[in-house]
C-alpha cells in the first residue's frame, strides 16, 4: 500500500488558541479514513489545513510524497485532491449540471480564442464534459435535476451534487466534510452506499462525520481527535474498545 497523505507534527494556532497540536497520521491509498471527535475538536480545521484553505503554523503535509504545505486549493486540485464542505459551496447562479461541469475544469483545455469563436475542438470537449457530468449526476442520484437551477434544489440533493462536482475532477483523494449532516435516515443509508461505491473505484476518501453508525460501517481506519490532539487511531473495532475514546467521546 502506498501512502496517499502523510502528516507530521502538524500545528495550527489562531491567536493563542491551539486548534491543532502535534498531529501525526497517514492515510493509505484506497482507504476510507474518518476523522471523528467532539464539536470544536478541530476536525474541520484539519480538513482546511490539508486542502490548502489554512496554512499550518508548523508541521508538514505530503500528498503522494510531495510536500504541499502552503499550496493553494486550485494547485492541490491539479494534484488530485478535491473536497466538499460542511457549509455547502454550490454556485447558486448556475444549473445543477453546470455545477458538475465546473468540476471538470482541469480536464478541459479551453483558451480565450477557442471560446470566443466556439471552435470545434471546444465544442467536442464541452460535449464530452456534459456527458461525463450527466453520468456523475446519475451516479450520485441527482439524475432528475440535470437542468434544474441549483437554487431550486433541496438540501439533500445539493449535498449529493457537491459530491458529483468533486468526482467530476477525477480526484485521487476526496475529502468529505460532514456529508451526512442534516440528512434523514434513508438519505444517510444512500450516502453510505455512495461512499462505498466511490471507494471501490479506488478513490481514497477522508471523512469528517458525526454519524457514528455511518462512520463505523464504512471506515477502514479512524482518527479520534480532541482539543486538536490525537486521542486514538485504529480500525473501527479498536476505536470502539479504546478506553480513552469511550471516556472522552462516546461518553462511557
Amino acid at each position, binding site marked *: 500500500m502506498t501512502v496517499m497523505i502523510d502528516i507530521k507534527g502538524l500545528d495550527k494556532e489562531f491567536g493563542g488558541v491551539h486548534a491543532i497540536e502535534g498531529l501525526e497520521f497517514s492515510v493509505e491509498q484506497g482507504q476510507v479514513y474518518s476523522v471523528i471527535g467532539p464539536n470544536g475538536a478541530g476536525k474541520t480545521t484539519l480538513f482546511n489545513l490539508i*486542502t490548502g484553505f489554512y496554512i499550518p503554523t508548523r508541521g508538514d503535509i505530503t500528498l503522494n510524497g510531495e510536500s504541499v504545505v502552503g499550496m493553494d*486549493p*486550485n494547485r492541490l486540485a491539479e494534484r488530485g485532491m478535491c473536497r466538499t464542505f460542511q457549509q455547502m*459551496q454550490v*454556485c*447558486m*447562479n*448556475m444549473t445543477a449540471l453546470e455545477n458538475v461541469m465546473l468540476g471538470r475544469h482541469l480536464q478541459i483545455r479551453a483558451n480565450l480564442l477557442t471560446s470566443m469563436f466556439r471552435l470545434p475542438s471546444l465544442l467536442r470537449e464541452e460535449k464530452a464534459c456534459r456527458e461525463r457530468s450527466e453520468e456523475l449526476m446519475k451516479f450520485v442520484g441527482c439524475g432528475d435535476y440535470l437542468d434544474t437551477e441549483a437554487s431550486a434544489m433541496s438540501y439533500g440533493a445539493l449535498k449529493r451534487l457537491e459530491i458529483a462536482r468533486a468526482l467530476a475532477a477525477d480526484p485521487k483523494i476526496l475529502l468529505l466534510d460532514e456529508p451526512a449532516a442534516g440528512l434523514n435516515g434513508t438519505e444517510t443509508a444512500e450516502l453510505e452506499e455512495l461512499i462505498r461505491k466511490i471507494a471501490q473505484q479506488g478513490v481514497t476518501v477522508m471523512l469528517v462525520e458525526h454519524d457514528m453508525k455511518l462512520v463505523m460501517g464504512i471506515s477502514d481506519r479512524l482518527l479520534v481527535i480532541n482539543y486538536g490532539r490525537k486521542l486514538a487511531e485504529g480500525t473501527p473495532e479498536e476505536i470502539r474498545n479504546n478506553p480513552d475514546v469511550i471516556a472522552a467521546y462516546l461518553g462511557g
Partner: protein
Amino acid sequence: MLQRFIDWRMNYVLVLAIIVFVVPLLMDNPFYFDLATQILIIAATVVGLNLLVGYAGQISLGHAGFYGMGAYFSAIATTTYNWPPLLAIVVAAAVVGLIAYVVGRPILRLKGHYLSMATLAVGFIIAIILNNESELTGGPDGMSVVPLSLFGWELSTFGLYSMFGFEIPGHIAWYLVAGVLLLVAVVVAQNIIDSPIGRALRSIHGSEIAARTVGVDTTHYKSLVFVVSAIYASVMGSVFAHFTGFITPAIAGFDYSIVLITMVVLGGMASPMGVILGAVVLKLMPQFLAGFQEYETAIFGFILMATMIFMPKGFYPTAMNALRRKLGRYSGGEA
C-alpha cells in the same frame, strides 16, 4: 414554443439585430442617428463590462479610464502621428489590455469595498494623466480626431456613401457600422460566457471557494476578464473618438465610470440584453428630462433608487421572468 424561443442561446441576438436594423427606418433626423450611434457604442462597452461585473461578480469603478485610454491612444496615433486608424485601434487595445493586466493582477486580489476603491483610483489616475499631459492630449480643452478610414475608404458622418445601390448619408453609415460592432461584441461575449471560461467566471461569482476547490485559478480568471472588459472599453473608446471627431478627458472621468456601472446594474447584471437596455435608458433619459432641467439629476436619482428597490435584478431579467411565468401558466408548463 414562444417560451423555448426566449430560452434559446442566441435568439436574443437575432432579436437585437432586427431591432438595430429596423430602428433607422423610423428615424429621419441626423440628430437621432447621432444619439443612436452613441448608444450603440456605449452599449458594446457595457456588454464587455458586464463580463466582469455581471458574470464574474467583480467591480470596476474606473472603467471609463480604459475607454478614455483607447480613445486618446487612437486620437493621438491617427491625428498627431498619422497612423492608419485600424492599426491604432488594435495597438491601443493591446496596450490597454497590457495595462489592465499589470494593474488588475494585484488589485483583483482585493474584494468588495477595497476592490471598488482600488479601481476607482485607477480611473482617477488615468483621467488626471489625460488632463495634465496637454502637449499630447490637448488637456481639458480636448483634441480633434480624424475620421475613421479603412484602406483609404473614409467614414465620416458628413460623407455620402453608396451601398447596395442606395445613397446612404454618413450618419446612417456610421449607425450601421456601430450596430454591426455591437452585434459582434454581443456574440463574442455570449460565446465566452457559454464556454468553460464563462463557467469558471460565473463560479467565481457563485462561490469562489467552490471554484478554487475544483482547480479554478481565480486570480488568473479575474485578471483575464478584467483585461477582456478593458479591451472592449478600449476598442469602443477608439471607435467613439473617430465617430465624434472631438474628445475631452471627461470621457475617462469618474462620472462616466459610474454611468457605465449603472447601465449594467440597472439594465440587469449577467444579461446582455439587459445591459444594452440599461445603456439605452440611461442615454435617453436625459433627453426626456431636458424639460425639467433643474430637477433632472434629482429625477434621475429617484428612478435609480426606485429601480434598485423594486427591481433589484434590473429591468430586463425582471420583465423576462414575469413573461416566462405568464407563458408557463398559459401553456401549463413549468414556469
